[in-house]
């Protein structure tokens, strides 16, 4: 009867719990405990004494983490790891999403599109370390395809090892990683496109809508769930970017390509003695940021 509370039987309560327990147990051991422990360690100094938020203050006080002065003065990087991550998001996110959507839409109706999609997706399939090594070759002054292209179009005087210079390395890495990540965006969008009823497109065509109008009025809105997934995953990837940066110049030269995850890694494994306090502080900052973004986007996805 309406309004009457439903009383669940003990079996109805215990059965879901029984099925949830293994997953909850694994989550607790491998996610919740490490997160809680990392936060705890971030409050300790190298001697294991409680120091409150000192590690956070130290991290934000460092030039290699937060150095907006160069940016304000219009100088080349380094701007600090956190700002580099921000720049990564500002450039990489829109480009990856744009190219992913563009390729998904264009290749949908192209004969042999699946083969081209597979080729584009290769960047995503290969390990990031290998992707980084490939980028090193692409940007190499002698062997690189980029400089080869410059020479072909008569701009050989611009040829240089693009990853060797503080002025160019960050942009080179970001643009290179667009190639690596676009495949993922394209695949998610392709799957999203398959989910849009064909009737909608046909009806719009009958009504005389242009392709452009169909794209903006039907395709883009209907792909909103896919966009949320793409943006969320891309943001998380950008925040925890490490492997490409590591393999190309280890955050250099002069810290010009340093990122937060690398900063954390260096603190934990290169300091003598290891500075797990500041490394954990950076890890906690990263966790809060990624969790915040993810929670916001998932919330939007659920609502949509």
């Amino acid at each position: 009867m309406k309004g009457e509370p439903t009383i669940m039987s003990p079996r109805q309560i215990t059965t879901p719990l029984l099925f949830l327990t293994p997953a909850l147990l694994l989550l607790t051991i491998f996610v919740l405990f490490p997160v809680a422990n990392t936060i705890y360690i971030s409050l300790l100094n190298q001697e294991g004494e409680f120091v409150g938020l000192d590690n956070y203050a130290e991290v934000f006080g460092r030039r290699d983490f937060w150095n907006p002065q160069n940016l304000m003065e219009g100088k080349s990087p380094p701007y600090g790891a956190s700002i580099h991550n921000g720049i990564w998001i500002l450039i990489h996110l829109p480009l990856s999403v744009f190219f992913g959507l563009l390729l998904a839409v264009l290749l949908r109706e192209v004969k042999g599109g699946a083969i081209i999609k597979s080729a584009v997706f290769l960047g995503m399939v290969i390990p990031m370390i290998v992707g980084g090594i490939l980028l090193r070759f692409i940007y190499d002054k002698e062997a690189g395809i980029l400089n080869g292209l410059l020479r072909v179009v008569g701009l050989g005087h611009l040829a240089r090892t693009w990853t060797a210079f503080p002025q160019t390395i960050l942009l080179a890495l970001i643009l290179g990683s667009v190639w690596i990540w676009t495949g993922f965006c394209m695949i998610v969008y392709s799957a999203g496109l398959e989910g849009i009823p064909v009737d909608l497109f046909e009806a719009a065509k009958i009504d005389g809508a242009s392709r452009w109008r169909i794209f903006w009025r039907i395709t883009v809105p209907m792909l909103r769930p896919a966009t949320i997934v793409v943006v969320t995953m891309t943001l998380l990837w950008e925040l925890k970017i490490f492997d490409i940066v590591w393999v190309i110049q280890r955050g250099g030269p002069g810290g010009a390509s340093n990122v937060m995850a690398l900063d954390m890694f260096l603190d934990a494994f290169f300091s003598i003695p290891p500075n797990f306090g500041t490394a954990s502080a950076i890890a906690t900052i990263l966790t809060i940021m990624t969790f915040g973004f993810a929670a916001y986007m998932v919330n939007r996805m659920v609502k949509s």
Partner: protein
Amino acid sequence: MKRNKGISQAGWMAIVAGLIIIIAAMGVVLYLTLPAPEKPTLTVFSLWSGTEEENFLEALETFEEDTGISVRHVGYDTLELLITVPTQLQAGVAIADVVIAPWPSWILSLAGEDYLTNVKDMIDTTKFPETYLDVVTADSAIYGVPFKVSGKPGFWYRTSFFTDNDLTVPTTYNEFETLLADISAIDGVDAAIASGNGVGWPLSDTTEAFIVGLGGYQLQLDLIFGDEQFNSTAVKDVFVELASLLQAGYFSVPDDFDAQVAKVWDGTYGIYFQGSFITAFEPFASNLDDVGFFPLPETDGATGAVDYAIMPALTKHADEAQQLIEFLASAEAQEIMVGLGGFAAAHTDVPDSAYSSIDLEVLQFLRTVTIVPDLDDAIGGTFQTTFWDQLKALWVTPTMDLDTLLQTLQDEWSAPSF
């Protein structure tokens, strides 16, 4: 209604129990009849690859033949080794039974965590220079066996390149500057000095040569031990001079160490500052008659790096690892290694006759100057990676603010562990 005549539950249980007993019995029989385990294979981690690795493996053949113990070698790059070993030891695992590395501070930091075995009783300490052992000694315990020594004597070149282009080896700093200008003016030469990259150590070796050459060996020692600041006038003077050479375009853009060796040989670059180990690299190794070196003129010192063999306390093959440590510390092993080129022995019993003429030339030069520890190897930690990284930036942007660079180095300095 017919009763099911299948095997009862008790019957199934009996079958399973019987199978378990049979399998267990077979396991016991198999174990008892197995031949005695062969001697284990030891795993050695080091920084060597290519020719250096081949030479090391060749040196190990004697050990393997004498003891019947085989050795598996895994070569890492600098940063990989710096991370891999401590991480494995922190996790309570020693994949390597012996590790060979040139970083005293790193070794003592591992020893401080009780990760290493005291090797004092495995070697005759009177057969090694005290300075080699002091830097890996803590509380009277010795944690590293000096296996071989690589000096950083100066600039390497093809003698035929100098002859063909009427170049002369400089004896003063002014002559050195003239030489750089002369080499740069040669057709087909991209830059006078090749710059090696990788993680950055070739640049730090070059920089240290200028610190020692222009500031004196004592400046290098003072920087290591904190008696001089990186942002002092003395250090800045050295960096100003280095930056002026960079701005003049005398140094190439950094590229992989190996690639630069080949480019020096083909005349793309004129000279290359490197350690003595370059004579073990092709095409130098096969053409030693055409190889020469000269120190930075007027220098009173040179850096030297000792490769230490260390033994993780967690090794599962302690006896065999000890045998290997004892072998590596022996004059016999070091003589074999020296004979293969590129290095000096740490053991004092290795005769000069064991060296090739060019290696002996290096050794004789090193005997005339004061040998100081490698700056970044001695300090270690994040200073080392920062030093490499800042130099990579300086090399491609020599107009960068030197005060900021030197302050960054000073901020990262920490007292060495020895």
